[in-house]
């Protein structure tokens, strides 16, 4: 029976609204201004053990706030949260022993020293016995291919190398849950791929639950077992990626090269029912609405009126769907 690693119920969080306009020169910042903005509105969801959850939404949707509540940094206004059986803001230290956190923007390493230098500090913080620690450290370095640069001062590392080391630090104590906040931000395509494969590896081999927030939909496609979409503090969707796509895919794109037009009027009528994305000579890219005409119909219409080659039908990528989705909301 699958156990839930993370359970969130009716989570509410609001922040005082930033004061706008002119202020008196000696204004004190307390008492808190009365106006508050609700950042999280009645959020509820659960994540099974060993699952990788992608938590996505436009900027300001409340993603960072959620992850900070789950890791014990912030205290919610109301609602209940259980992470591995702990209430994060009440049992912060105990929970910290069971989780690993990587914030994309802030490194866990020290600027002037190498990642290897820093390890004893984290060993002590996580209370890992010496022998077990050495073994684990070597193992992670091997797995993530970090042997070459683990002894290089952090300031000399590339972003990708640094993130890898951050991941190693976060996994030293074999956490049950791994929280990743924008782990691939700023990385080049290869480094992103590597990052994703490492996360997937750990998830598969150690059954680590992963809670991931990201703006890169390729991360989601590659990793997430399930996604939750939030916007303006409310949960919009929870479920598998495929479900989301099915629900929200509006368009498909058909690309082909015209060899010969058999029925001119039928071809014209097809063009009128679609949106032309590009045309280079005889090469066309047409987008059409799934609601009006499904892929099969579109293809048969095309073949009836023309002789073609290099025919392709592409569904919208998650990236495109999400972008449209954000725009809509």
């Amino acid at each position: 029976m699958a156990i839930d690693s993370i359970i969130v119920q009716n989570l509410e969080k609001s922040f005082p609204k930033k004061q706008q306009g002119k202020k008196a020169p000696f204004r004190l910042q307390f008492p808190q201004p009365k106006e508050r903005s609700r950042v999280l509105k009645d959020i509820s969801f659960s994540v099974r053990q060993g699952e990788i959850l992608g938590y996505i939404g436009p900027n300001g949707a409340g993603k960072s706030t959620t992850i900070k509540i789950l890791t014990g940094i912030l205290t919610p206004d109301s609602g209940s949260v259980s992470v591995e059986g702990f209430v994060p803001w009440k049992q912060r230290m105990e929970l910290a022993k069971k989780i690993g956190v990587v914030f994309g923007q802030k490194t866990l390493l020290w600027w002037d020293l190498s990642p290897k230098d820093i390890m004893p500090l984290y060993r002590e913080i996580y209370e890992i016995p010496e022998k077990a620690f050495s073994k684990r450290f070597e193992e992670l370095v091997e797995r993530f291919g970090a042997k070459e640069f683990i002894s290089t001062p952090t300031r000399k590392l590339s972003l990708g190398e640094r993130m890898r080391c951050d991941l190693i630090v976060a996994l030293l104590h074999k956490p049950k849950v791994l929280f990743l906040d924008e782990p691939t931000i700023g990385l080049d395509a290869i480094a992103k791929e590597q990052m994703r494969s490492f996360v997937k590896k750990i998830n598969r081999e150690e059954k680590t639950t992963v809670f991931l927030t990201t703006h890169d939909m390729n991360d989601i496609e590659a990793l997430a077992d399930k996604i939750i979409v939030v916007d303006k503090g409310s949960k919009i969707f929870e479920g598998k990626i495929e479900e989301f796509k099915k629900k929200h895919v509006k368009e498909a794109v058909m690309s082909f090269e015209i060899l010969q037009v058999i029925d001119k009027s039928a071809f014209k009528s097809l063009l009128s029912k679609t949106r032309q994305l590009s045309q280079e000579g005889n090469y066309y890219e047409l987008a059409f609405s799934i609601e009006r005409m499904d892929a099969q119909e579109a293809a048969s219409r095309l073949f009836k009126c023309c002789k073609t080659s290099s025919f392709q039908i592409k569904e919208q990528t998650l990236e495109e769907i999400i972008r449209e989705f954000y725009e809509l909301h």
Partner: protein
Amino acid sequence: MSFTKSARILAIGLMLHWKRLLEYRLNLAFDLLLRLVDSVTFFMFWAVILASSNGFAGWGLKEFLIVFALESYFTALVISFAYAGLYMYERIHNAELDSFLTKPAQPWLLAIVKGIEPSFAGFISGTAALALAFTQGISMQPLALLLGLFMVLLGVAITALFGLSLATLSFWLGRMDSLESVFESFWSFGGKPASIFPIGLQVLTAFTFPFIFIQTIPTMAILDKIPVQEMLLFILAEFIVLIAWIFAFKFLWKKGLRNYESGGG
């Protein structure tokens, strides 16, 4: 979190900063050079004051030499550890605190460990001053000297807590670069004879910001101008102040954390 764990984390932190220091050896040289400059200005200042007045609260060069030694040790330790507490305010506002909060250790301890800046020059100048006093035949009470060093240690702990408490104010007041000015202005009360301040002020600061006493009381005791028993009373008072500051900081920290917005997401 257990005391031994905190001590071990601090020890490892010190070792790491020592490693950092070795990387930047130039800083060590600068540390020494600047302590030299500082020492010269200290003696110049008092030389001028002493020259302008006939007897300054009964203090002469002897007294200032001992004060200088204690002040050197105090400054070295404050630079090394106490500023780290103050600079926690920066870690609060650059989101580094978030990474501390998600670790199984006290975030303020991690902030201090990150911010340690080992400064040795003060130990050198302080010991040199004591050696000079010794060779000049100035008689010093050894017990008072030991207790004096202990007072300095307690004083550093109080200063560190003061710095940490100021840092927690930034939970409410936002990013405040002025906290450094406030921090420094309080312990600039040290290094001067306590007797120049009116009794009212002495009493007021004795149980809040005892910087007036940390160096001058031991100096008096070392030079046998006050009995060691009186010194013990001051040490007791310092202990009480230290404990009061621990409570004050814990209170501010708890309240502040609850108020923490962490950049508002």
